[in-house]
C-alpha cells in the first residue's frame, strides 16, 4: 500500500491537473520546508555527537567525490545524445549531481514505517552532496573562466537556505544532544510527518504544473529524467556497499544519489549560468524525477541495495 504521505502528493497532482486554484501561501511553504530542513539537521546532529567524527571522514570524502562524478557522467549524455546546448546540459547535469531534501524526507518516512535501519549520520552526507555538483556544473558551462566570480558563487551557494538550515540543525543537534532538545522535540520530530504531508501537497501542485512544459521538450528529457536516477542509484548503492554501510544506509545513499535538486541548484544556476533555460532543468528534476523517485524509486533502490548486499555477502 502507498504511504499516506504519498497520497497528499497525489492529491496535489490531481488538484493541479484538474485546474484547481489551490495553493499554499508562499510563506507557509517556506516555513514548512525550513522546519523539515532543521528537523533533518537536528536528527543528524544528535547522532553525530554519539560517534567519533574522524571515523566518518572516508565516507564524507567518498560522497563528495560521487557528487563531483555524477554531473560529469550526465553532461556528455545530455550534450551529445540529447543535443542540448552546452549551458543547458551543464545546468541539468548539476541538478542531477546534487540532492533533493524532499526526496530524502520521504525516504526517511518510508524507512521508518518499514522499520528499516540506516546510518543516522545520513543528514551530514546529504548536506555534503548539495554543493560539489553546482561547482562542476558551472565549470562545465563556463570552463575555468576568470570571469566567474567564485567568491560570490560560493557565498551564494553556502548561504542558501538548504545549507544554512541543514548545517545549522546539525550543529545545534550536535551541541545540545537528545536531552537538550527534548523541549523542541514536539515541533521538529513529533510533527515531522504532518509537516511532510503538507510539504508534499504543495510539491504535488508544483510538480504537476511543470508537466505543461514537457510537450515542448520531447521524449529525450523524460527518458533522461528516469534513467539518470536509476544509474545514479546504482552508483550510490555500490558505493554504500563498498563503504561498509548497512543495507538501509546503502539504500539511503542510492536515494541521495538518485535525487535531483530543485532548490539550491536552480537558484545557483540562474545566477551563474544565466543562458541555461531554467524551465528545462526544473521540468526534468521536479516534474519527472521527484515524482518518479518518491513513487517508484525509493522501494526500488532499497531492493537494489538488498540485492547488492546479498551478492557481496556483506
Amino acid at each position, binding site marked *: 500500500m502507498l504511504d499516506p504521505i504519498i497520497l497528499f502528493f497525489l492529491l496535489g497532482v490531481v488538484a493541479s491537473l484538474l485546474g484547481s486554484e489551490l495553493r499554499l501561501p*508562499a510563506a507557509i511553504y517556506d516555513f514548512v520546508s525550513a522546519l523539515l530542513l532543521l528537523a533533518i539537521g537536528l536528527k543528524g546532529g544528535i547522532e553525530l555527537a554519539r560517534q567519533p567524527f574522524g571515523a566518518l571522514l572516508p565516507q564524507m570524502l567518498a560522497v563528495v567525490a560521487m557528487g563531483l562524478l555524477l554531473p560529469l557522467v550526465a553532461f556528455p549524455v545530455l550534450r551529445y545524445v540529447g543535443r542540448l546546448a552546452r549551458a543547458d546540459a551543464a545546468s541539468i547535469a548539476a541538478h542531477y549531481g546534487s540532492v533533493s531534501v524532499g526526496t530524502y524526507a520521504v525516504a526517511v518516512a518510508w524507512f521508518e514505517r518499514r522499520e528499516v535501519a540506516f546510518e543516522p549520520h545520513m543528514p551530514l552526507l546529504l548536506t555534503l552532496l548539495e554543493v560539489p555538483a553546482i561547482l562542476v556544473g558551472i565549470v562545465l558551462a563556463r570552463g575555468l573562466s576568470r570571469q566567474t566570480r567564485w567568491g560570490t558563487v560560493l557565498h551564494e551557494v553556502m548561504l542558501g537556505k538548504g545549507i544554512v538550515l541543514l548545517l545549522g540543525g546539525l550543529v545545534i543537534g550536535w551541541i545540545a544532544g537528545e536531552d537538550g532538545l527534548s523541549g523542541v522535540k514536539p515541533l521538529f520530530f513529533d510533527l515531522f510527518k504532518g509537516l511532510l504531508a503538507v510539504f508534499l501537497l504543495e510539491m504535488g501542485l*508544483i510538480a504537476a*504544473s511543470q508537466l505543461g512544459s514537457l510537450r515542448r521538450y520531447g521524449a529525450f528529457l523524460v527518458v533522461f529524467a528516469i534513467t539518470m536516477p536509476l544509474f545514479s542509484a546504482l552508483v550510490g548503492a555500490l558505493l554504500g556497499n563498498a563503504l561498509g554501510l548497512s543495507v538501509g544506509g546503502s539504500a539511503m545513499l542510492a536515494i541521495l544519489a538518485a535525487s535531483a535538486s530543485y532548490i539550491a541548484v*536552480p*537558484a545557483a544556476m540562474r*545566477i551563474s549560468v*544565466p*543562458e541555461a533555460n531554467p*524551465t528545462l532543468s*526544473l521540468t526534468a528534476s521536479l516534474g519527472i524525477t521527484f515524482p518518479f523517485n518518491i513513487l517508484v524509486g525509493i522501494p526500488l533502490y532499497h531492493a537494489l541495495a538488498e540485492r547488492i548486499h546479498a551478492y557481496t555477502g556483506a
Partner: protein
Amino acid sequence: MGTYTRKLLTIVTEAAIEGAIRRDLTQLGARGYTITDARGRGDRGVRNASWETSGNIRIEVVCSSDTAAKISAHLEQHYYTHYAMIMYLADVEVLRSEKF
C-alpha cells in the same frame, strides 16, 4: 509647497537576481529603492511565483534622470539577454529634493 521633478524607474524582473541588482543599484548611485513581490505574464511565459524560481519582483527607484539613465543602460546591457526583465520610466514630483 514647491515640488521637484525626478524620474521613477520601475524594473520588473526575476526574484532570482534580486541580490545582484540591489548591489548594482547601490553602486550606480541610487540612494534608495523599494522592492515588492510580483506575478504576471510576459514573453517568458507566466511568472506566477508558484515556485522559488518563477517569482518576480518589482523594483522602484526614484532618482535623477542621469542616474536613471545610467541604471537602465547598465541593466539593459547585463540582464536583458538572459533574464525576464522590463523597465519603464516616468516623471514624478517629489517634495524633498535632497532625498533623491
